[in-house]
């Protein structure tokens, strides 16, 4: 983990939020019948469980934003993959297929997005905006009843707790570790940073930006497939409106996590802290009984604030580099 950038600040913020929650609500400490305080991690564990899919999705979005692109279709893609997962789980096929199917569908969506953006040379905003509507239409069409349930065997996997930690968290944790490693130590990871920083410069050094954009969007599709498998196996019932606003949540988490919205700067660790921050904020909203209707407004405000902060920082940087001249 790098100890520069946004991470230390976020660690402190998360710590503060947890401290406030612990002090004012039964979030971590619970007073038992005898009056003694006991540590109760169940609320925190539940929080992490519920946000496992968001953790996974946000890692994929980090790569997309790092490379200088954006993906607005993740919410609809999550919904489609989760619905597919639920339907496949009900078909009585071998259980692994129910996990494989959403991942394959997600990868396929990523393939389409990536091909059109990288080789059709079109703004990712438009492609993914169109894709968002197409996929949502498909979801609503596939699920006329409004919801589908997963099979019990499928759900049992999501609710299992090997070594006291749920499978969702295991998957999210291992996935994040692998991606963080890829980003730091592989050529592909470094090329993503290079392309996001300056595509022209990357081209001159022999990197093909379009290949990177293609691979990143493809990878993001895979990520969403994985996230939806985790989500579906955890929640059991998939409504056809799930994932609405998911793109906002992910982009907010990534940007709060210190990744520059222009690309080229940021880290997977920061993103994980960003997701944790949003999760804690959400718990705080619930504990302090602020109506859930305001939630979106709060996330939006955080996104704007975080980007503003990021831009103020880069301006201060460039001022400093120019020797204080305006």
């Amino acid at each position, binding site marked *: 983990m790098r100890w520069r950038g946004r991470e230390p600040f976020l660690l402190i913020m998360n710590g503060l939020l947890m401290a406030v929650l612990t002090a004012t609500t039964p979030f971590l400490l619970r007073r038992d019948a005898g009056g003694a305080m006991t540590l109760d991690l169940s609320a925190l564990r539940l929080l992490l469980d519920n946000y496992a899919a968001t953790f996974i999705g946000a890692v994929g979005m980090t790569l997309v934003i790092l490379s*200088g*692109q*954006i993906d607005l279709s993740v919410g609809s893609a999550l919904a489609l993959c989760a619905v597919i997962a639920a339907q496949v789980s009900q078909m009585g096929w071998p259980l692994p297929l129910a996990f494989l199917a959403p991942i394959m569908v997600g990868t396929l969506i990523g393939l389409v997005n990536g091909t*059109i953006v990288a080789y*059709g*040379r*079109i*703004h*990712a*905003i*438009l*492609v993914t*905006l*169109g*894709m*968002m*509507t*197409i996929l*949502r*239409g*498909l979801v*609503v*069409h596939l699920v006329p009843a409004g919801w589908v349930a997963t099979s019990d065997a499928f759900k049992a996997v999501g609710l299992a707790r090997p070594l006291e930690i749920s499978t969702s968290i295991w998957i999210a944790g291992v996935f994040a570790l692998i991606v963080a490693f890829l980003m730091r130590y592989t050529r592909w990871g470094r090329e993503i*940073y290079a392309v996001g*920083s*300056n*595509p*022209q410069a990357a*081209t001159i050094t022999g990197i093909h*930006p379009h290949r990177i*954009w293609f691979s990143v969007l493809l990878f993001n599709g895979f990520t969403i497939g994985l996230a939806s498998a985790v989500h579906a196996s955890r929640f059991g019932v998939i409504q056809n409106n799930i994932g609405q606003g998911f793109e*906002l949540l992910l*982009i*907010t988490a990534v*940007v709060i996590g210190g990744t*520059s*919205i*222009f*690309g*080229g*700067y940021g880290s997977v660790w920061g993103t994980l802290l960003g997701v944790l921050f949003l999760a804690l904020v959400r718990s705080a909203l619930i504990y302090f009984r602020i*109506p859930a*209707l*305001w939630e*979106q*407004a*709060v*996330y*939006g*405000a955080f*996104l*704007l604030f975080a*980007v*503003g902060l990021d*831009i103020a920082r*880069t*301006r201060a*940087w*460039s001022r400093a*580099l120019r020797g204080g001249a305006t």
Partner: protein
Amino acid sequence: MRGMAGVLARGLTRERILLVIVVGLLVVIASLTPKFLTSTNLQITSRYLVEVGLVAIPMTMIILIRGIDISVGSIVALSTVVLGFSWSVYQVPMALAVLLALAVATLCGFLNGLAITRLRVPDLVVTLSTLAIYRGIAEGLGGGGRVYLYEDPLMRFLGEGQILGIPVGLFVFLPAVVAAGVMLDRSAWGRWLYAIGHNETAARFAGIRVDQIRLLVYTLSGLASGWSAVFLAGRLGTARATAGLGLEFEVITAVVVGGTAISGGEGSIWGSFLGVVMVTALRNGLNLIGVPSPIQAMIIGTLLILTVLVNENLRLRVRGWVRPVVPAPTPEAEPAHVANPSSSQERR
């Protein structure tokens, strides 16, 4: 072949090609379903057309200067809620409530513009956050409830009224189209928009007040969304926080189908008008033929992606214009002496 393409590019402007396509589409729809060309249907469709079209006018200008505004649907929601709840809860007279809604919508657009020009946050990010913020405030204020407006005479007039058999909304929309179209074609201000879209840095050096124009255009977008909200509230007879959901998609599709390049500097209000007609007629036609609404969304989404693919790549071939290596969302172009702050200095 090449010469042929050149002749085509000169003789057939994008708008003319589009006009042929739109007329063709209308003929196809009319021949598929006799219900299309009835006066009732045209009345209903044109009301919907006004709601999309009003927002499409400033959206064209925004995309012309390389921006994007995806918060329009949320502005519609917020101003609808303000309209309905100020009328029912605070007993404000309807005329005043309408003005209030328009004012709130304009303020929303102004704040978008302010964040974009002052904080220099990219358009997409600002409007993505305000998409959530405005919708969130609308939901918070509305509290999940709804207000019925159809008993109010003014709302009924805006929603159902007609003058000489023509829906009221068209009397606002059509003059607005003509005014904006002429402005863009003939006035210096209009040409500045194209200049900014082509090369913002050059436009700045030419003395064009880029930030002022950008602020104005986003404010206009808010105002237009307010008008759209008022007509929508009148048509539906209800005010609730879900109003205008997905409007941004419909509007952006119409503008892009209308030939405005997402890379800025190319397009026209006339094209957008045809785009709006095309998208609304398509929706209406699919509705009449009995295509379920989710499939309609998929068809229109596909239309958006295909049009951009064709538009951008046709431009590439026909004009031999080589696009820059970066089609990605480019950071705000700063004046040349300020090196791009986000990309160059921030390397580890």
